[in-house]
């Protein structure tokens, strides 16, 4: 009986819950619960992202299989744009140059901020001053800093800033960006100078989270400065290091500003990078023959490559960062 009463008594409750559930799922219930208001609030964001981020991406996919000059009606050309890019001798040059830039930036640009951050964290006095000095290049507008280096530091005459300094120690003037062999390393040098400050600040912030007890314990175990860095600092910064590593790879794969402003891809295409080649496809030829299709095709190839690289990287390093 009790059971029956309970069963009878629960029935309306079950029925009411189902009704509320149905109402919850109905458009009216959604509106009553403020879903519509939420939608209205999110609508501007959706519109802005849709118009300025997602639609251009979708449009790029469409243009990559078209021939268009944005005035006459576009024509469908299938995979022709991709074939054109893959057959262009400059494509391989651009890939090699981009890889070279990324490699040099990785060898010299990646460890430098870490070393400087560790050294700065060890400084007892005027830490703020060093931080400011390190961050100033980041504050300087990129175009200004590139022009400063181009006109002043990299002036290939004997009166250029770097060449004057080299002259003091008897080294003859160097061509810097005026020579195919030294142009790319010169670009990496400026790019490292310009970007290191931002990464140093990130590392400095991460270093403050390293427990001092770990260093104390290491000291008790007889560890010197290098052993402390190797066994305490680097493992503790592992997560940040892995993130900055992939960000650096993605950033250097998209390098454009330096080769565009310093050398326009020269001398002899020695600094033509993938992104600069995309720009050249789209805008180098002004007589209506600009190859927007090839430009978007190469853009998609680069985006695809970076997406796969990032995915593989995070798969491979997942265990490292967790452990």
């Amino acid at each position, binding site marked *: 009986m009790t059971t029956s009463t309970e069963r009878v008594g629960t029935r309306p409750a079950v029925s009411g819950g189902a009704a509320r559930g149905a109402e919850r799922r109905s458009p009216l219930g959604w509106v009553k619960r403020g879903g519509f208001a939420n939608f209205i609030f999110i609508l501007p964001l959706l519109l802005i992202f849709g118009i300025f981020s997602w639609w251009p991406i979708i449009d790029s996919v469409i243009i990559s299989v078209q021939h268009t000059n944005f005035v006459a009606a576009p024509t469908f050309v299938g995979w022709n744009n991709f074939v054109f890019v893959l057959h262009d001798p400059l494509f391989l040059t651009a890939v090699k140059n981009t890889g070279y830039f990324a490699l040099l930036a990785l060898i010299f640009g990646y460890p430098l901020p870490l070393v400087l951050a560790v050294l700065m964290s060890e400084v007892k006095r005027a830490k703020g001053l060093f931080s400011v000095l390190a961050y100033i290049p980041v504050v300087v507008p990129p175009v200004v800093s590139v022009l400063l280096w181009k006109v002043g530091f990299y002036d290939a005459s004997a009166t250029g800033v770097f060449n004057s300094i080299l002259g003091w120690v008897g080294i003859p003037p160097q061509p810097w960006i005026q020579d195919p062999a030294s142009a790319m390393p010169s670009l990496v040098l400026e790019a490292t100078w310009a970007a290191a400050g931002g990464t140093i600040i990130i590392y400095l912030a991460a270093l403050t989270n390293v427990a001092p007890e770990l260093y104390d314990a290491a000291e008790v175990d007889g560890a010197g400065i290098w052993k402390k860095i190797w066994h305490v600092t680097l493992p503790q910064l592992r997560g940040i290091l892995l993130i900055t590593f992939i960000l650096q790879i993605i950033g250097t794969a998209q390098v454009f500003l330096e080769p565009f402003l310093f050398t326009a891809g020269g001398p002899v295409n020695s600094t033509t990078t993938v992104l600069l080649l995309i720009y050249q496809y789209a805008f180098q030829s*002004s007589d209506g023959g600009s190859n927007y299709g090839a430009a978007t095709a190469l853009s998609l190839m680069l985006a695809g490559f970076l997406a796969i690289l990032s995915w593989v990287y995070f798969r491979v390093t997942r265990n490292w960062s967790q452990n």
Partner: protein
Amino acid sequence: MKSPRKVAILAAAGVAAASLALSGCSAGAAGANANGKTEIVVASLEPGASAEALKAFSDQVKTFEKKNPDILLKGEEYKWTGTTFAAELAGGTLPDVFGVPFTDSKALANNGQLANLNKLVSALPYGNKFNKNVIAVAKNDKGDIFGLPYTPYAMAISYNRADFTKAGLDPNKPPTTWDEVEADAIAIHKALPGVAGYMQMTSGNTGGWELTSATYSRGGRMETTASNGKVTVKTDNDQTKAALAYLSKLRWKDNAMGSNFLLDWDGINQAFGSGKVAMYMSGSDVITALVQNDKVDPANYGVTTIPLESGPDAGVLGGGNVAVVNVHDTPAQQAAAVKWIDFYYGQPQVSQSASVTQSKTLQASKQIVGAPTLPIFDQATYTQQQSWIKPYATPGLLANVAPFTSTILNDNIVPEPNKHTQDLYGALDSVVQAVLTQKNPNVDSLLKAVDVKIQALIDADPDQASLK
């Protein structure tokens, strides 16, 4: 606290207002009619022009608006560059009236990327007086006119007269052969360390432009057209190789070209203006830009013709600009645009009063009057126009440009290559850079690669695909 419904209504109103504001912006920017007037935006001067130059332009706008009270004119700074023009064209950010170089106008017209001005330009009083070779660049393949040619130039050698004097050279006797250019460059570089005796542009498609000019002066051509219209690229020719060998000698043996080998049009003008380059190749009318943007003293400026080697094919590369109209303009805007083109570019060439008025305006603002150009119409019209502006010419300029003007009309003027010109120039940039930055580059291989690349582009053109 407001109810969710009220909040939603408020938010919806906000979104609607924002949308209306955005749509209002786009509608207002179209440049149609304002107060019953036809409104057009015209290319004025290059970015960086001096205040005096801008005032001179502004004065001309006022004169035009006085004559045409139904038109409202706005000037917009504009500069054609190979690497930005296509973006502006595709993005729809070009003014209603703008200039394009001879190399591009025909292709743009054929692609339907310019307004067809055939009826409007043909109706002008001088519509049938054009030099046929000049107006050809403003026509599409069907023969319709899409613009008005202006400031046709011949490639020339600009030089710093003060540097000539300092090096013990006579600035009134500039070099007339390539050997003399070399000798003078060496003398200047020796007398003035740090100054490039002679330099050419190498970047932003200008390296190919100047290499083509150097090739023409030696009797060579970059493209040839067969009787059936088939175009063949052959940069791998003896004259181009001779021009490159000449540069190599000047750079590596004479060491007379300075230390910056990545110069585009702006870069070399700045280098010349700041005294780092003594002699360089450019268009004959470059003094106008040098004064407007680079503070060059006209009294210190000289220009002479490009040395021509013997032979019937040796010639001077001739180019220029075409004033064209935005393809998106309404018929009323197109008509207003052609009125401006006629006023600003056309009338000063054929009407004494217009020519004198423009010269006086430029003179009052200390702008260049008398920059050497080539005839747009026939020789007689050109000579007459030159006589009208003579009293207002920039002091000393006519004498300084005499080495050019006294001989250029007898020279063989050769038009630029007509197929994928900018692509060709861009591809040749790296060849010129190779010669100036490497001691022994494989020039043959580099030129052959250019031929293959550009020929493939030409062969893919619809009008070339069926030709053999």
